[in-house]
């Protein structure tokens, strides 16, 4: 472990160059950063659990070092890639469905409701 520098502090240094504001309120930008960092951590946690499960399957018992040293083979790597993809699809559902919605011009369900009432 590096002890001459505070690696946790330095790793989080900001990049020089004014950051674009993506939303009207700065707290929205900050909140999204936190949410996405959490999304990433849950993914890492899920992958760790997958590793534990696979090691238990293979050997029945494990040590922490086994987890850190674990290298998936090509098939397992793919399976885990698919898990991540499906996970991202679940977390990002709102964005994906908004994109899908942009492809059509739809009346509101309220409007359809009024139409059906008189149909």
């Amino acid at each position, binding site marked *: *472990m*590096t*002890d*001459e*520098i505070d*690696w*946790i502090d*330095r*790793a*989080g*240094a*900001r*990049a*020089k*160059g004014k*950051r*674009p504001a*993506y*939303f009207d309120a700065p707290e929205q*930008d900050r909140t*999204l*950063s936190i949410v*996405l*960092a959490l*999304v*990433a*951590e849950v*993914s*890492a*946690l899920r*992958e*760790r659990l997958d*590793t534990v499960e696979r090691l238990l399957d293979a050997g029945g018992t494990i040590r922490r070092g086994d*987890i*850190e040293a*674990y*290298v*998936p083979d*090509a098939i397992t*790597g*793919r399976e*885990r*890639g*698919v898990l*991540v*993809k499906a996970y*991202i*699809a679940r977390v*990002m559902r709102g*964005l*994906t469905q*908004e*994109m899908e919605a*942009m*492809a059509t011009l739809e009346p509101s369900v309220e409007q359809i409701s009024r139409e059906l009432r008189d149909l």
Partner: protein
Amino acid sequence: MTDVPPPYTAVARHGMSPTPDHDEAARFNFLAGFNKFLSAGIGAGNARAYENRVLPAFKSEHKRDPADRFEIRHAMNRDPWHRFWSACKRNSMEMRQHNGRQMVLRQLDELDGRAALYNADRETLVLDPAVAVPRYQRAVDIHCMPGSYHGEERLGDVSAGANYDCGIFATTGGGLGALNDGGGAALVEWARRERPDWQPKRILDIGATVGHNIVPLALAFPDAEVIAIDTAAPVLRYGHARAQSLGVTNLRFVQMSGEALDFPDNSFDWVQTTMFLHELSGTALPRVITEGVRVLKPGGLMLHLEQPQYSDEMPLYEQFIRDWDAFNNNEPFWSAMHGLDLKKIMREAGLPDVFVAGVRAVVDESVFPDQSKQVEDHGRAAVWNAYGAWKPAAA
């Protein structure tokens, strides 16, 4: 079959690779998947927002089409979809830096120690503290990389190079291959196809950073003397150690500016830049090219690998989306550079017959993605144009 990036653990290890712990590898795996989601998954949403509402609103307001990519950007930056997508993408870039730096900095003692072993008293690493870091490298931290290529966490460290190298996987989803050298491997393939019997004796790579694209050339032409220059010492230290650990002995890393090459006229058979020209400035770019032509032997090759230049034939929307990194990922010369007429600049520097060739990353496709089958991540895909010319033989 579901298209997913390979795991980070499939990346090749060399003597300077930081050792990822389980969760560090998992974080890069997430980012590789997330970047793929943002480009291949929902990137098309930007075009949809543009066609369906941004462009119609623009036309209704201005009674005309947008005149250039900048007008499109200003209009798109007010669109809620594009804003949210951009915010996600910016965060993924920042998270890639943060994750890479956590992995590298926690083991920096170990990495610096290894670099010291590879670098001590080697004639193949020539650092010159008198070489200034140019303004175009200092103005902002390029691609949101804290400290850019020249930053140091402590005097003489390799953190900048190690972080840059390890995280390329995350932003490209493994698109540059096991050693991030898909660009260099593509150069070798191109040269072998174009001039099968050509054996360049001296090769110069300008703006080499960690040398990932020049190592394949040095290995492919073992009898050539290969020199990689950069203004940033930290990436040269790392790059030299990395190359040594890969067994490359004919490659020298020299701290030098491409604007003032300390080499005689007509002294190289091949002068190369790879994804470098966009990190210069309006005056530096022609200077680098002119210097490169000066040191190039008659009959020698100058080649620049870059993302495609913008032209009148390229739709304005595509120019706009390719410009994303310029304004959102700290690439301040990207937009202006891609609008330049590179062929004209090369002609004016003394290379009358400029050609443009399409080149894509050469990777081990059993593990890493075949770039011709990928949905393009505009501005980041490992599919490039090579702008090249053979210097005319002396009259």
